[in-house]
């Protein structure tokens, strides 16, 4: 059942070409950044990693408006509820599908982006490790605000306002892995990620139920 729901979500994300949006955004930011700060290789290598974390965080907000709202408006969520399937299951399936369509492509896009910024191999390794741990949290956060804002007007802007404060710990620990004391930062990132992934099915399920009228 979980796989049935998740594979449908992944297939519809693929068909709507929404998977390319975060990837294109990350690459765009990475290619614009050297124009803004100048072609100083040392400066780019020092600041590029943190900048990519910001880009990844903002990229996670791009697909928010198509995660829940279209299915809610089309009655799909109601039809699933009719069949006695809990909203928590729906959100969990969607979280899996959303991460699969968001995390790995973003991690792959990070490689050419890192090359554009002349990051060294150690930094790239830490960046990828951090993204592997952090992207589930970013996906969960995006999904959570999508369930909260589904059905509201100008939900996209509201989603950004809601998600940003909650994403600050991820940004701090994520970018922290690139500096000194990266081991501790990775552990904190993992803890923050676990927490968000664990609460999202329950909080998101409750939000969908509360939004039903």
């Amino acid at each position, binding site marked *: 059942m979980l796989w*049935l729901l998740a594979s449908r979500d992944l297939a519809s994300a693929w068909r709507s070409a929404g998977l390319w949006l975060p990837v294109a955004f990350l690459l765009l930011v990475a290619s614009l950044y050297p124009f803004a700060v100048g072609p100083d290789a040392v400066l780019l290598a020092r600041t590029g990693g943190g900048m990519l974390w910001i880009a990844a965080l903002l990229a996670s907000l791009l697909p928010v408006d198509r995660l829940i709202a279209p299915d809610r408006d089309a*009655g799909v969520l*109601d039809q699933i509820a*009719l069949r006695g*399937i809990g909203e928590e299951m729906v959100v969990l399936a969607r979280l899996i599908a959303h991460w699969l369509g968001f995390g790995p492509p973003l991690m792959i896009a990070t490689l050419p982006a890192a090359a554009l910024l002349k990051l060294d191999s150690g930094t790239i390794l830490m960046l990828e490790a951090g993204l592997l741990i952090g992207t589930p949290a970013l996906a969960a956060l995006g999904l959570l605000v999508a369930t909260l804002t589904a059905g509201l007007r100008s939900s996209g802007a509201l989603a950004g306002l809601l998600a940003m404060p909650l994403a600050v710990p991820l940004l701090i620990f994520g970018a922290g892995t690139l500096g000194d004391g990266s081991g501790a930062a990775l552990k904190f990132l993992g803890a923050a990620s676990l927490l968000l992934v664990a609460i999202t099915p329950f909080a998101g399920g409750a939000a969908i139920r509360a939004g039903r009228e």
Partner: protein
Amino acid sequence: MSGAALRLDDVACLRGGRMLFRGITLTIAPGGSALLTGPNGVGKSSLLRICAGLLPIFAGTMTREGGVALADERLALDMELPLAKALDFWARIDRAKDSAVDDALGAMALKPIADVPVRMLSTGQRKRAMLARVIASGAGIWLLDEPGNGLDSASLALLGGAVAAHLAGGGIVVAASHQPLPLAAPVMLELTDHQAVEAA
């Protein structure tokens, strides 16, 4: 689908601070049907959503046995998929037997357009696709909200045939409609009679 049953006992519905209706008592046995009538806004759709378990009940109780399928104004089919594939998703969720989608497409005369993407369908075809989703679900209780809207006379006859077959098989149909529907001896429920008296 034997053993389907639906029972409402003194149900009241409060929406947006307004009492839509109260004192609805209704018992439907296998093979029985009910027709909800009344002007727009009287709460026909809300009562169907209460029967579906999607709306909380303000007072009273609702009990039902058997699965439930709902056809309201929303299609709930993937727009980009071919019709048969879109229906197949729900059939797999329902664990319906393999021929369920095929039979439902046949019952609604949709087989010629089974490979057409859902977004290309006309209004009447979408309505028939929605009814095919209900038929394929194999649920015992059908909740139909204005099922005749947008259907031509040939499609109405198909709907009548599908409903008759469902009732003959021991199913239950609750329909809200302002059109005459081919239901055999339904329980008529006029919701205007159950409107709450406004406090002066």
